[in-house]
């Protein structure tokens, strides 16, 4: 009961919804970059939404199913195939034994999540299976996946459940239903909702104007810790040393050189750079699905609207769960 990584592609790692409760010891939350998609992949498979999944960045991944299994793929950045059969996202899939899922390029999105029914048997480190490579914690030996890695399933697959699926001649099964897209990744300009950051007032007038009125490009120097942005530079009105304080995913901090960085999943727990803005929590998944080279524009919203948008995602997830439990 397992899969084998034949090719990790651009970058693949084991992630769940994060390692919570240890930030006071300097341990980042980490976990899936796009937590909405990771949770959805699990919900489709009937799993707890915090089960470990495989996060595949862009394309080039190749995974062998050593036994038949139910799985789901959610997110973007690739198209998935078994031979010449394209596998739809957001549906429950039945994969016959010895099938190989290969991913190819797709202009939309950046990260896709593969879950299997019952979940992968990954050792939890401090309550989480998430891979945090800077400290070598979690996943498979604290590192990204490499060719030959085998991930076992937690439990046997329920073969009878496959009868509810639409069966293709190749033996691949696809559910008739699919889950709704909760947000749409874009290949051109991503509109990201943001609120003024804690140190917004410390920036000069031009910087305060530019953050919400100019376009930025996500730099190729971006990773799971943060997205570097290219575009206008930012300047403080008065240079003053900042004392370190807590930071988290979605914070837009400005380096001494004036470059903005959006902190992402593997963000450090604390930081000492001035924070010009913070991204609405509901848009972090959208950002995770926005790849280097794509332009983004910050749209200023008020805190109340940010909360409303976030609650909307939480409610939508609840509806998906209820909806799926009714399909039986």
């Amino acid at each position: 009961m397992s899969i084998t990584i034949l090719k990790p592609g651009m970058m693949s790692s084991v992630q769940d919804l994060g390692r919570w409760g240890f930030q006071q010891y300097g341990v980042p939350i980490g976990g899936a970059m796009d937590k909405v998609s990771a949770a959805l992949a699990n919900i489709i498979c009937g799993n707890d939404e915090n089960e470990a999944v495989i996060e595949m960045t862009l394309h080039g991944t190749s995974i062998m199913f050593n036994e038949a299994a139910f799985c789901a793929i959610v997110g973007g950045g690739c198209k998935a195939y078994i031979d010449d059969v394209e596998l739809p996202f957001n549906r429950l899939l039945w994969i016959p034994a010895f099938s190989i899922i290969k991913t190819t390029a797709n202009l939309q999105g950046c990260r896709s999540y593969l879950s299997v029914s019952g979940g992968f048997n990954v050792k939890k480190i401090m309550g989480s299976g998430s891979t945090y490579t800077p400290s070598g914690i979690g996943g498979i030996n604290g590192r990204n996946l490499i060719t030959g890695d085998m991930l076992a399933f937690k439990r046997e697959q329920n073969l009878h459940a496959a009868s509810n699926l639409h069966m293709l001649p190749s033996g691949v099964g696809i559910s008739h239903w699919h889950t709704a897209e909760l947000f749409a990744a874009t290949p051109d300009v991503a509109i990201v909702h943001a609120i003024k950051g804690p140190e917004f007032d410390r920036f000069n007038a031009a910087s305060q104007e530019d953050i919400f009125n100019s376009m930025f490009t996500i730099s190729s120097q971006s990773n799971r810790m943060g997205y570097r942005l290219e575009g206008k530079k930012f300047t403080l009105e008065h240079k003053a040393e900042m004392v370190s304080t807590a930071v988290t995913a979605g914070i837009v901090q400005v380096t001494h050189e004036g470059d903005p960085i959006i902190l992402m999943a593997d963000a450090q727990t604390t930081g000492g750079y001035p924070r010009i803005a913070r991204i609405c929590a509901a848009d972090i998944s959208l950002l995770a699905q926005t790849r280097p080279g794509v332009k983004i524009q910050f749209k200023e919203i008020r805190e109340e609207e940010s909360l409303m948008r976030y609650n909307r995602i939480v409610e939508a997830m609840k509806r998906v769960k209820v909806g799926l439990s009714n399909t039986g």
Partner: protein
Amino acid sequence: MLIPRIYNIHDQAITIEFSAAISEATNLQVIALQHAIESNPFKGFIECVPAYGSLTVYFSEQVSTAAVRSWLSDLSAQISDTIDHSSTPGRKISIPVCYDPSLGVDLPWVSSHLNLSLEEIISLHTSVAYRVYMIGFIPGFPYMGTLPEQLEVPRKQTPSLKIPMGSVAIAGKQTGIYPAEVPGGWQVIGRTPLKMFDTSTSPCSFLNAGDLVTFMPITLDAFNQYP
């Protein structure tokens, strides 16, 4: 008492900032508030992150931002009178450090920059007890102060690409210990054989915010024979 500044850093995380400066009194207030919350957590509470002059509280959608804000503000006002500034909220810990120049690779630079002998540096660094203000930067890294004024040095212009695990370093008014081999910009003056971060222990970090640390010099032989 100063009115703290309260702001969101996330839709589900709120920071209460008592001061934007490094002060022992403020940090005591931060840790007192952390202990008060942790010993009587509200519904939806996830975790606290203490920093020099601020405490950040993470919570779930079970509770509203407005409720957490007003609760934090009330609680911090309530406890501000009860803080005992003469005692330490954490443990008192002695940490062995070998100040041999083969391990404290920046000792020659620090010595010439400050015009102090090696012995003077060791005696100054071990002369006071340091408060652990916060853990951050990387898992298990303690930010400690306050360093004797005569030991104040700037950070490196260009950070070192690899600072060995256990390195004891100084920068500005602070001293810290690198829990893993990472790039870093502080001046390394020694090394401890103790493990500062271990995922198999509970808690995973050897030090906590609020602890009081003294350094005890050990010889290179003692360092090498350390169990």
